[in-house]
């Protein structure tokens, strides 16, 4: 791989990474159901918020494939694993 190709590959990867990062941080959201309550109470959580929830085991995927909170009220203090 010559120097020019390396610079192109590098540029494409950095742009791709930055685009994914920016889209995830500012635009990507996921619907999360509360632990109790029906589908009407669905919350659209941004990806940073979902990362925070996932880091304490605060969300799970139920049998129907929907993402559900594992707690009501205060979030768990630490990851259960």
């Amino acid at each position, binding site marked *: *791989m010559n*120097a020019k190709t*390396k*610079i192109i*590959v*590098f540029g494409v*990867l*950095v742009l*791709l*990474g*930055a*685009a*994914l*990062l*920016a*889209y*995830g*941080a500012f635009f*990507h959201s*996921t619907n999360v159901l509360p632990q109790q309550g029906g589908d009407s109470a669905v919350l659209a959580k941004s*990806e*940073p*918020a*979902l*990362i*925070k929830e*996932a*880091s*304490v*085991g605060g*969300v*799970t*995927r139920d049998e129907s*494939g929907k*993402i559900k909170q594992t707690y009501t009220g205060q979030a768990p203090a*630490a*990851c259960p*694993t």
Partner: protein
Amino acid sequence: MVPMVKKTRLNDLTSKLLGGRIWIQASFLLVWLDPLGLRWHSMCSPVFHCYACPLATFACPIGIIAQFSALHVLPLIAIGLLVAVGAVFGTLICGWVCPFGFLQDLAAKVPTPKFDLPKFTGYGRYVMLVGAVLAVPYFFGEQHPLFVCRICPAGALEAAVPNVVGQAIAAQQVVWPNAIKLTILGLFLTAIFFMRRPWCRMLCPLGAIFSLFNRVSAFFLRFDASECTQCERCHQLCEYGIEPEKTPNDLRCIRCLECTKCNPQALTLASIFERSKVTTAPTQE
């Protein structure tokens, strides 16, 4: 006349920093160990540090990729961060920045006999990445015993141990980690004194991701065949069983850059942006 690559400013900087690598790793702890109490767990770091650690500034990218795989959601932030950081630094992150690598480097300084690992063990990292980080969570969810966080020694050491100690000090009921986690922790704590970076070399899924960027990253190892005297000193300098002059950007390389200490400087850290000043040297007659 033989073409000869002159030393660049990056080479000078590398040779100055090389002796203090352990201090650079230590100073990065000020970033990862949350001295300001930020607990910024809505953002991933590019290093292997469990988010359940009481002193974790950021979320672990591997834990987040696995959790999102279990949720069937694409982790764009984690992937974007790893692609961007990997494209710039490759496995320089492993050798110079990662706190879990630093811990293993410190343990390796204990003067015990060190055993080498066969080459094929390096592929365990990709098995771990595809199996425990992507496939198991996706198909079986986060409750599966082979879910990466349940078998991760970083989680056991950085999260389970401090939590158990904290519970004991606070006179609360102690919740012990399960037997698998304790066994993995015991094996890991034994292995780090008898092998160099056993986790990084055999099982680290984050190292597996960064290693894929080694051949295209902005910083890479350059081998100058005209400078090489074939003394094979680089083989002795490399603690990870790589022959750097054959594969300078080997997937197993953690970019500790020890091999760049070889005297003729046939191996150097280079960047895709530098213009190497090529001069000519007289041939030996």
